[in-house]
């Protein structure tokens, strides 16, 4: 029945809307599918999926598989895994993507384990290219290059899956760009019978309670970000940074070291294992500039680094460097902004 060997994206949705990360993956998926001359497909699993394809088709999607059942929302691991495992056995996708979210990172490994297909987590770049196996000398054409930082972000590795299919990867939200291909693009909808793709024993995990809290932090959408690192030194000094962020109308962010030190919440972490941001202005305070952090903010339009160490690695990618203690510099910035902004 099905088209085979295409590129498929598992689409997450919440509050009746397809998640941004899934739309970003569809955008990347369309580019790669064009390059390979294959179709782009999407699979949505959940409840109340009426018209959901209308949100998906404009990204250049040729087929939307829909699996609808009240028990499939909210997400639980086993039924969603079973659906993907069984669907993938049937349509044998060449490539499969999912978001590096709490859902994708729960689902992807299970599916890859069952299909014995490789999976690369948190890719920052996806490309198509050739590969020669160093041992056997065997050549492979048009593999998926799954590119990701490794070792705490100190190196970047290019991973390939030469022999197993699908070639699977997860990507964090905000890493790829979201772009509609054609608002009139349309494909076919394939409704799948959930009972054929899941087993009754898959529904063993019961959600007793679910507090949906929309994140109060909107780092991705903020044009101004004030971020602190280990050099900030204390929770109290983070309050000072919050004051600067509030004064400038920006958001407060942090490096992993500051989050690990417990000075600030995890949802404000910027970098490879946090959020990727591209603001107009990025003020880095007491951030040394580990690669893990830089990879998540280097595309900011203007980077100001405030650091007591003039040799801090972040200064090499900054546009403006202020050498000094943040406790000293930040109050002055607040003062002179207030003085001059009216």
């Amino acid at each position, binding site marked *: 029945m099905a088209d085979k060997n295409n590129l498929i994206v598992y689409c997450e949705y919440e509050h009746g809307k397809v998640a941004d990360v899934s739309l970003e993956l569809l955008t990347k998926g369309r580019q790669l599918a064009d390059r390979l001359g294959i179709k782009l497909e999407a699979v949505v699993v959940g409840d109340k999926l009426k018209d959901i394809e209308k949100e998906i088709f404009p990204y250049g999607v040729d087929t939307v598989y829909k699996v609808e059942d009240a028990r499939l929302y909210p997400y639980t691991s086993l039924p969603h895994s079973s659906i993907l495992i069984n669907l993938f056995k049937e349509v044998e996708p060449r490539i499969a993507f999912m978001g590096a979210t709490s859902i994708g990172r729960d689902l992807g*490994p299970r599916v890859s384990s069952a299909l014995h297909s490789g999976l690369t987590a948190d890719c920052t770049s996806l490309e198509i290219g050739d590969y020669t196996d160093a041992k056997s000398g065997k050549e492979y054409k048009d593999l998926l290059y799954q590119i990701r930082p490794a070792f*705490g972000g100190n190196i970047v590795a290019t*991973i*390939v899956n030469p022999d197993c299919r699908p070639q699977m990867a997860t990507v964090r939200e905000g890493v790829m760009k979201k772009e509609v291909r054609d608002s009139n693009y349309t494909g076919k909808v394939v409704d799948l019978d959930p009972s054929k793709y899941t087993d009754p024993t898959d529904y063993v995990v019961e959600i007793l309670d*679910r507090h949906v809290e929309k994140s109060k932090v909107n780092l991705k959408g903020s044009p101004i970000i004030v971020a602190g690192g280990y050099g900030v030194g204390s929770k109290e000094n983070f309050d000072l940074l919050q004051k600067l962020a509030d004064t400038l109308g920006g958001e407060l962010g942090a490096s992993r070291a500051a989050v690990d030190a417990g000075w600030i919440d995890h949802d404000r972490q910027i970098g490879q294992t946090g959020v990727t941001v591209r603001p107009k202005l990025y003020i880095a305070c007491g951030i040394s500039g580990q690669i893990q952090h830089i990879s998540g903010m280097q595309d900011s339009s203007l980077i100001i680094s405030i650091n007591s160490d003039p040799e801090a690695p972040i200064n090499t990618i900054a546009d403006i460097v202020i050498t000094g203690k943040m406790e000293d510099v930040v109050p002055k*910035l607040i003062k002179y902004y207030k003085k*001059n902004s009216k």
Partner: protein
Amino acid sequence: MSLNIIVLAKQVPDTRNVGKDAMKEDGTVNRAALPAIFNPEDLNALEQALKLKDMYPGTKVTLLTMGPARAAEIIREGLYRGADDGVVLSDRAFAGSDTLATSYALSAAVKKIGNYDLIIGGRQAIDGDTAQVGPQIAEKLGLPQVTYAEDIIKAENGKVTVKRRIEAGIETVEAPYPLVVTVNGSADECRPRNAKAVMKYKRAAVPSEVAADEAKKAFVEARPYLQIGEWNTETVGADLAQCGLSGSPTKVKSIQNVVFTAKEARTVENTDAALEDLIVELIANHTIG
């Protein structure tokens, strides 16, 4: 009611505070410059297991790690904090394992330990940050899973209640055990070492650590509680084709040191006048305000 819990732990290089000497000239990682530590989220996992042991007396906590013989260090660390037993899964055949081959090896060892109610591990290890091994083991053992756990609230009547933290908020779920749970860094920190346990277990070792020293060997052999298991592919009956490089569908094509293109940075003096000028400039070009 008591439980049998296996805690999955990994000894990892401390990648969080990588200094300038951590990378070699050729762009490879200088592992010798990085201290080996107990993977942080695996400590959160151990705490959940120890908390259940406090709640349900008679519960047994067994640590399982895969790595070289020196990974026995983290088994001892776990024993100092309240674990009962430990196994190091060690074999050259595991070299080059990706997450799938790792989960295959660990699931073989879990089967060998047997009779488990809960398998608890950290969400992810800081040297890879993949979060894949937990769910892959669950699938290999045919068990349900609960990931991103923040608190294992109770385990009663064959069901475990777990609070988990996800992007959308907080979920409380109930799942039957045996079950795999992976624990988030936002969960309670692990309790410190217990002085009595340190005294009791400081000479605990895997056989290969004491093999060269007759006196130490005899000391450990006379005391079963000091014997940390040291298993290999044969002990756990692993299929070599599924181990190490040959069992890994993913291959590393290339590794690059990360080099960012340096920009010509402008220096602004840390003086009132210079900082005010900067603010005025940023307002004027509409970067702020």
